[in-house]
């Protein structure tokens, strides 16, 4: 589904990603964890070209999206993304946020888009908030709307960039529950997270990024009980 080959990203003289080669298969749930500044978010953002890699290749469905001339808009429609800070459109209502993509990008009729939007809002438990503006929502509710908005494009893969990091502790669960539901539906997911329990529970694979290197790529049981790398051992000692 998504494959990276020798992916490198530098900001000026700072090398954030160093030769990351890995693959996310269809239906797989991959958790990307590691210390702050290790390149997790940058890696995720390279997958839909929000960050343009300095070197290396990113293949989505065997299309190299780093070649010039690729219609990246078309590819992004197929890759939903959820951000740490939600990034809801503040001047649009909850329902308008969710229907904006289907209406304006996929050119669904307003009625069809609203039907889809309300359906998704009920899936994340926020049907009754359809008409309000995002500023009236709690952080957890905002993030659930953001998930619904991404799902409204009916993507094949969902990218989550620290979806619970900006939330108050008591709101984390409601967002994780929605994500677990998504896992059960068979969605392909890549999740940058600090929620180790969640990663262990839902992920098929853990990618451990440290100082821009893919230090470990293992199933959660092996990674959490018997990590190979020294750095992963240290990290797990601190967070578990």
């Amino acid at each position, binding site marked *: 589904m998504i494959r990276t080959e020798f992916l490198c990203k530098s900001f000026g003289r700072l090398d954030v990603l160093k030769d990351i080669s890995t693959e996310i298969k269809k239906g797989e749930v991959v958790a990307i964890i590691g210390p702050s500044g290790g390149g997790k978010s940058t890696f995720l953002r390279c997958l839909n070209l929000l960050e343009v890699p300095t070197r290396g290749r990113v293949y989505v469905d065997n299309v190299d999206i780093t070649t010039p001339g690729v219609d990246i808009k078309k590819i992004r429609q197929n890759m939903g993304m959820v951000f740490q800070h939600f990034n809801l459109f*503040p001047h649009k209502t909850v329902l308008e946020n969710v229907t904006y993509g289907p209406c304006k990008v996929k050119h669904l009729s307003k009625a069809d888009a609203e039907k889809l939007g309300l359906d998704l809002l009920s899936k994340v438990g926020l049907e009754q908030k359809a008409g309000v503006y995002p500023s009236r929502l709690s952080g957890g509710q905002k993030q659930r709307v953001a998930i619904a908005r991404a799902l409204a494009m009916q993507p094949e893969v969902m990218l989550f960039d620290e979806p619970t990091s900006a939330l108050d502790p008591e709101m984390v669960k409601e967002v994780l529950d929605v994500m677990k539901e998504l896992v059960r539906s068979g969605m392909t997911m890549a999740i940058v997270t600090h929620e180790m329990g969640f990663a262990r529970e839902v992920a098929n694979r853990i990618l451990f990024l440290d100082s821009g290197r893919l230090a470990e790529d293992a199933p959660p049981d092996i990674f959490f009980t018997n990590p190979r790398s020294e750095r992963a051992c240290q990290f797990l000692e601190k967070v578990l």
Partner: protein
Amino acid sequence: MVLDFVELSLRDYALLGQATGLNLDFSKIVPNIPFMLQGVGVTLAFTIVSALIGFAWGTILSVFKISTFKPLKWFADFYTSIFRGTPLILQLAIIYFSTPQLIGYAIPPFQAGVITFSLNSAAYSSETIRGGILAVDKGQREAAMTLGVAYPLMMWDIILPQAFKNILPALVNESIALLKDSSLVSTVGALDLMRRGQIVAAEKFIYFEPLIFVGLVYYVMVMTLTWVAQRFERRMRASD
């Protein structure tokens, strides 16, 4: 020092009393009030048409300024420097007096005024709008990009509405400046409020009363505009 101050204020007081005693008589201009008030429509027409065209053109220029296509940015920057670097009354004179010489079309005062003020106002508001665009959280742009929204649509639907909301007070300032600067069309013979005040003054050979009256009308217009803008702004903030 103290003595100086007392002397000065005493003298001022005496002068004021003298002037009041001499010949201040607002009843003299009463018959001319309807004639002068007709200038309100002319002044407002100048202001509104110029503000709208200037705003639209300024928006286009601001998008040029943030463009990655350098020639567009150079053009917009150069344009702004010209209109900010020369006096407005000179710009008006060039357009009114010089265009006929250049293209053989005798431009009416209204057209000359609207063209000048629109072009000038666009130069100033393009800077304001550019600032407003840059102040919109970059997450908004990323959220739109991940939905696969094309750049022009993203600007129009997501970025500009938020930018305009942020800079509304600055745009009101720009309109107020425009309303007052529109008095410069009196120099090319348009019958605006200012010009009518001067005509009455010259006709009756009294200056204080008609000019004060005209000043009062300008003041009321500006205050009304400010009041309307404040109410409008409060309503827009309702979604925060």
